[in-house]
C-alpha cells in the first residue's frame, strides 16, 4: 500500500490536467475543420480502467460529460475483449452519446500488460452522413435522417488497421476532411497514452491507484463543501424552447426541481414537457452535461474535474421528455437545449445564490453554410463561430462578457481568425463588431452582442439555421434589464431579404448573397441607475452605450446634474 503524499497528490492532479491539455493542443494543431482547429469544438479526457473520469480539458463543456458514461459503456460492451493497440470510435446517441456529430475516439492504455486507463478525444465533425451536409437537419424525425450511427467499433484491433470498418464508416460521410480530423483525434490519443505510460513508469501502478483514489476522495469533499454552502431546500425553475422546427408557434417548457440536502444535490426534470416530433430533443448525456456545467459555474472553479466531482450530484431525466428523447427520435439540436436548461437552473437558484448566479445569457442562434468553393473546387462546411456568440449575463460585482457565446461552451470557444476564415471558406467578411446598446442594462451590465456580415462566395449554397433567442431575450436579474434578440437575415443579390426561422433549411442561396447576423447581448444585474458613472461615461465615449440609452436607462443626466 502506497503512502499518500500530499505534494504528489497535487502532482498527479496537475499531471492528469497537463496530459489532457497536451492532447487538446495536439487536436487543435493537427485538425483541419475550422470547427475543430479554430473554434475548438472538442474535448479531451483521461479515464481510469473502469471508465471513471480522471481529468478533462473541456474546450466545449457540453460535449464533456458524455465521455465517461460512454467509456463505461464501451468497457461493458467489449466485456474484456480490449487489447493494446485497439482504437474505438463512437457517436451513438442511444448508447450515451450526446450528439451525432460529436464523434469520440477511445484508446485503452496498457502498462505492464494490464489495462490501467483510457484516453479519449471527442470532436464535432464537419459531416456525419444523414440527409443534410453538416448534420443539422431541421426536417429530421428519426436519427437515420440525421446521421450515421456509430455504436462502439474498433478501427484498430491489436494495432492492426481495420480497413474494412474504416471504409464502411467513411463511405457514409460526405467530406474527406472528416477522415483527416479523426486521424488527428487518434494522434492526440497516442500523445495522451504516451504521457500516461511515462507517468506510470515513474511512480508505478500501485502508487497511481492509491493516489487516484485519494484524489477522488479529496475532490468529492471539495464539491460537497460547495453544495453545503447552498441552503437546504427544494427549488423550482423553468426555461423555454421556442419552435420545434415543424409547428409554428410551438413552445416547450423545461421544468427543474432542485433538492439540496446538506452535501448532496439532486436535479429532477420529471415535470419537463414531452419530446418533440422533430430534431429538437436532448439526449440524456447532452442534458446532464448542461446541468453539470451550469452548476460548475456557480461553485469553486478550482475543483478538479474527476469522478469525485460528480459523485455528490444526482440527475433525473425521464426518457420521453424533451431533454431525453426515446429511440429512434431525432436529437441533433439537443446540445442547444443547454441555454434554456441553464435558464431554468439559474431561475431556480437565483434567490438562494444571488452572489453566484449570472443573469440570463444570450441563447445561441447559429447557422451552418455548406457549398462548393468554386476557386478551389472543393466542398466546405462553415459554422459561423464568430457570428453566433452573444453576451453573457452579468453577475454581482462583474459585467457579463462581451461576445462570449453560448453558455454550453462556457466561453471556451475561440473566435475564427478573419484571415483564416477567408483562406478556408469562399466568403468575404465585411464586418465583425460589437453592437451598441445590445447589453442588458444593469448596475453590472450584460455582455455586448456582435454583428457579423459576410458575402457568400459559393453558388447554390445551403444555409441551415438552428437556435433560439429570437423570441425571448436574455433576462436581467434583480432590477437589471434584458439583452437584445438574435436575428439572421439573407440579402439576395436582387435585393430581396429572407429572414429564416430559428430552425430552418434554406437551399439554393446564390453567390453574392449577403449574410447578416446579430447575436444579442446578455442580461444585466441590479439597478442600472447605480452603474459606476465613470465606467458609463467611458462606454458612451467608446460608443458601446449610446448617450440616449445612458440617459433613459441609466439615468446619466440626473446623476450628472446632481
Amino acid at each position: 500500500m502506497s503512502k499518500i503524499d500530499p505534494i504528489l497528490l497535487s502532482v498527479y492532479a496537475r499531471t492528469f490536467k497537463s496530459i489532457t491539455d497536451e492532447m487538446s493542443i495536439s487536436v487543435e494543431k493537427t485538425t483541419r475543420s475550422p470547427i475543430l482547429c479554430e473554434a475548438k469544438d472538442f474535448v479531451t479526457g483521461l479515464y481510469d480502467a473502469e471508465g471513471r473520469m480522471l481529468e478533462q480539458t473541456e474546450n466545449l463543456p457540453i460535449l464533456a460529460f458524455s465521455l465517461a458514461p460512454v467509456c463505461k459503456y464501451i468497457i461493458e460492451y467489449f466485456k474484456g475483449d480490449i487489447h493494446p493497440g485497439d482504437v474505438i470510435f463512437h457517436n451513438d446517441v442511444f448508447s450515451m452519446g450526446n450528439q451525432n456529430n460529436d464523434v469520440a475516439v477511445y484508446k485503452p492504455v496498457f502498462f505492464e500488460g494490464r489495462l490501467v486507463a483510457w484516453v479519449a478525444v471527442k470532436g464535432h465533425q464537419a459531416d456525419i452522413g444523414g440527409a443534410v451536409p453538416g448534420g443539422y437537419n431541421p426536417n429530421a424525425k428519426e436519427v437515420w435522417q440525421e446521421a450515421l450511427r456509430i455504436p462502439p467499433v474498433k478501427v484498430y484491433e491489436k494495432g492492426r488497421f481495420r480497413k474494412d470498418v474504416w471504409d464502411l464508416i467513411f463511405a457514409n460521410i460526405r467530406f474527406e476532411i472528416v477522415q483527416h480530423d479523426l486521424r488527428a483525434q487518434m494522434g492526440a490519443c497516442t500523445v495522451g497514452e504516451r504521457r500516461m505510460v511515462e507517468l506510470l513508469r515513474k511512480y508505478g501502478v500501485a502508487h497511481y491507484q492509491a493516489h487516484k483514489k485519494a484524489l477522488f476522495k479529496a475532490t468529492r469533499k471539495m464539491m460537497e463543501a460547495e453544495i453545503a454552502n447552498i441552503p437546504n431546500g427544494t427549488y423550482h425553475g423553468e426555461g423555454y424552447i421556442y419552435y420545434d422546427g415543424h409547428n409554428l408557434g410551438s413552445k416547450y417548457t423545461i421544468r427543474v426541481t432542485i433538492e439540496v440536502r446538506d452535501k448532496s444535490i439532486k436535479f429532477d426534470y420529471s415535470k419537463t414537457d414531452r419530446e418533440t416530433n422533430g430534431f429538437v430533443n436532448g439526449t440524456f448525456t447532452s442534458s446532464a452535461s448542461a446541468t453539470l456545467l451550469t452548476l460548475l459555474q456557480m461553485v469553486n472553479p478550482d475543483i478538479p474535474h474527476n469522478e469525485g466531482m460528480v459523485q455528490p450530484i444526482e440527475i433525473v431525466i425521464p426518457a420521453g421528455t424533451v431533454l431525453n428523447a426515446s429511440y429512434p427520435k431525432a436529437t441533433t439540436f439537443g446540445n442547444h437545449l443547454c441555454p434554456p436548461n441553464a435558464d431554468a437552473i439559474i431561475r431556480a437558484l437565483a434567490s438562494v445564490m444571488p452572489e453566484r448566479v449570472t443573469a440570463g445569457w444570450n441563447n445561441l442562434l447559429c447557422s451552418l453554410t455548406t457549398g462548393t468553393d468554386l476557386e478551389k473546387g472543393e466542398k466546405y462546411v462553415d459554422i459561423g463561430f464568430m457570428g453566433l456568440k452573444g453576451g453573457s449575463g452579468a453577475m454581482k460585482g462583474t459585467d457579463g462578457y462581451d461576445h462570449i457565446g453560448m453558455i454550453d461552451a462556457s466561453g471556451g470557444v475561440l473566435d475564427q481568425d478573419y484571415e483564416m476564415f477567408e483562406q478556408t471558406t469562399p466568403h468575404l467578411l465585411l464586418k465583425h463588431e460589437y453592437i451598441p446598446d445590445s447589453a442588458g442594462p444593469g448596475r453590472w451590465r450584460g455582455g455586448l452582442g456582435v454583428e457579423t456580415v459576410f458575402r457568400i462566395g459559393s453558388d447554390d449554397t445551403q444555409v441551415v439555421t438552428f437556435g433560439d433567442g429570437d423570441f425571448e431575450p436574455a433576462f436581467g436579474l434583480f432590477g437589471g434589464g434584458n439583452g437584445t434578440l438574435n436575428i439572421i437575415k439573407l440579402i439576395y443579390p436582387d435585393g430581396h431579404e429572407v429572414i429564416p426561422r430559428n430552425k430552418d433549411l434554406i437551399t439554393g442561396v446564390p453567390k453574392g448573397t449577403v449574410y447578416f447576423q446579430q447575436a444579442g447581448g446578455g442580461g444585466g444585474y441590479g439597478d442600472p441607475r447605480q452603474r459606476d458613472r465613470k465606467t458609463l461615461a467611458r462606454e458612451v465615449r467608446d460608443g458601446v452605450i449610446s448617450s440616449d440609452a445612458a440617459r433613459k436607462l441609466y439615468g446619466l443626466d440626473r446623476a450628472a446634474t446632481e
Partner: protein
Amino acid sequence: MTRRLRIAVDVGGTFTDATLTDPETGRVVSAKTLTTPDDLARGVVDGIAAALAAAGARPDEVREVVHGSTTGTNALIERTGAKVALLTTEGFRDVLEIGRIMRPQAGLYDFSVDLPMPLVPRHLRLEVRERLDAEGRVLVPLDEASVVAAAEVCRREGVEAVAVCFLFSFLNPEHEERAGAILERLLPRVPIGLSCRVCPEIREYERSSTTVMNAYLTPIMGAYLDRLQRRLEAELGSIRLSVIQSNGGSTSVETARRLAVTTVNSGPAGGVVAAAYYGRRHARDRLVSVDMGGTSFDIGLVENGTSATTTEGSFQDLPVRIPIIDLHIIGAGGGSIAWRDAGGALNVGPRSAGAEPGPACYGRGGTQPTVTDANLVLGRLSPDYFNGGRMGLDVGAARTVVGRLAAELGIGLEETALGIVKVVNANMVKGIAAITILRGIDVRDFSLLSFGGAGGVHAVDLGRALSMREIIVPPLPGTFSAVGLLVTDRRHDYVTALGGIQADQADLASLERHYARMEAQAVAELKGQGFGRDAMILTRIADLKVTGQTYELSLPLPRQSPFDAAGLKALVKAFGALYRERYAFFFEGEPIELVNLRLTALGHNPSLELMRHPGGRADPSAARKGERPVYFEGGGFIPSAVYERNRLCPGMAVAGPAVIEEETSSTLVPPDATAQVLDDLGLAVPMDAGGRP
C-alpha cells in the same frame, strides 16, 4: 589603453545592478545602486560609475554596455505607455478587443476573471476603407480620405503613436505603406508603426496586438534610449550600447527603438540565460531559476541546459508574436508590503515599497512593513552589512512597523515577522508551481537556482516546500542577472511570409532569394554593430504545415544552403519527423505547405569564464566573522554563525544555523542544512529526499 571592458547594467524595480567583466582576465566585479525612478538613465550611469570604482577601472576602458531595461515592462504593468490610435480595415474596429478567445482557459467556469483592457480604447480604434483579399489582391482600393480623417482624429485627441494593421497586409504591404506615408506627412512628430514591418505574419489579432504594443512602447523607449545614449557618451565616450531583448539575445539601440516591444521583460530573460549558463557550468541541466529582487519574483525554467523560447507568448495577458523566453513573474520581493485584509488574515504583496520610499528599515520614509523589514527583525539580515555596509538598515524602524501590524493581528512581533516570511514564501511556491507542477513537471528532479538580492534568505525554505533536490546560490547572487547579459549573443530575427506555397511546387530560386535577402540584411546590420563575419551565426528556419491545417511548425533547415531540391527534400522529411515527435503521428504523403521563411542571426560575444578559486579545507572557520541570534520557526532566536562569502574557499562546508553574507546578498542556512562551496564560490545546499515514495 584599449577599450576592452564590458559592463552589464540590469535595472530592477528597486536596485540597478552593474556587473563589469574584463574578457582578458576573466575578472567579474559587481555593484548595486538604487534605481532612480524619476530618471532611470541617471541610475544606470551611477551603477556604471560604482562598478568602475569597485574594479579600479577608468571610463575610457569600457568597450560595451549591455543594458537590461524595465522601462517597457513597467509601462505595460502600470499602463503608462503612449496614447495610441489603431487604424483597422473598415468593419473590424473591435479586433483588438475581441481577440481570438474570450477568456483564459483557467477561467472557464469562473466569471469573476477580468479580461485585460486593450491598449487602445474603442474611440481611438479608427476604421479605414480598404480591403485586400486572401491572396493579397486589392478588392477595395485604399480610401485616402479616410486615412486623412483618422489622422485628424489623432491630432485632435493628442495621440502619441499610431499603429496600422489592415487585413492581409502580410501578403501585400501596399495599403499599409501608403497609409503610413500619409500619416507621417500629417503627423510629423508621431511614430507610426505598420504591422507589415513589426510582425508580417498571418492572424490579424496577434499581428494587431504586437503592432499596438510596439506603438504603445515606442515613444517611451525611444526617449529613454536617446537620453541614456547621450549620458553614456558623455561619461564614457564612444562605446557600443546593446539592449537585451525578451528572446534573451541582445540588439542595437536602433533596433530596440524601432521594435520596442522586443525589450519587454528583457531583464528577467537575462536572468534565465544566466541560470542556463551557470547550470551548464556545473552539469545541472534541469533548473528552476528564481530571481527575488525588491519588487518582483521572476521564475524561469531550464531543461536540457537551455531556456525555452516561445512565439505564442504574451505580456500582461496580451499576445505578442515574437520569440520570447518563457517566464512567470509574480509580485513578491523584499519590498513587498505586508497587510491585514478585511477578514483579518495576513497578506503580503503584490504591492511593493519599491526603491522610493523602500522598506521602513531603509530610513527613507517607508511606513509599511515589508519582507525586508521582517527579515531584519528575525536577524536574517545584518543591519550593518546591507549592500556592503554602504546602506545601514534601521532595525528600530523595522520593529516599529512590524510591531504595529503585530498589534493589529494581536500576535507577537517575531511571530508576525515570521508570518510575513511564511506568507511570501507560500506565494512564491505557488508561482513556481504554476510553471512546473501545473504543467506536470515534477520539480523534485530539479535544482533551485536562487538569485536576486533577496533570494538567498528564502531559498532553502522554498526548496524544502517543493521537495527539490538541491538549492544553488550562485556567486554574486545580488547581480546575477547581469551575468546573463554578459554571456548572451546579439540576436536578430527576420521573417518573410509566403502566404502558403505548396512545397512540391515551390520556386526554389525565389525562396533562395528570400533567404539571401534576409541574410544580406542580417550581415549588414551585424557588421554595422562591429561583428566580424566569423562571429556571425546565421540560421535559416522555415515554418511548414500540412495543407488544409491552420497551424505550422517552425524548424531550422537541415541543409542550410543553398535552398535547392535536396535541401527541400531534407526539410520536408525533418518536418515529418518533428510533427511525429510533437503529435505522435503524421499525415504521410500528404501535401505540405511553406508558410514563413525565418532567419535568426547571432553575433557571437566572447564567452565569460567565471574565476575559479583555489580549493581548501572543509572547515570554514577562516571565513567566520562572528555570531548573532537568528529567529527560526519552532526554535526562537538561535545563536548562528556569520560567514563572509568572499573568504570562503571551494570545498568548504558551512553547517547551519548560519548566515553567509556578501556585499549584495545574504544566504540563510537553517539549523539542519549544510552549504557546500563550489569552485566559483557558488553555494550548493543538497536536500534529503523527503517525501519521495
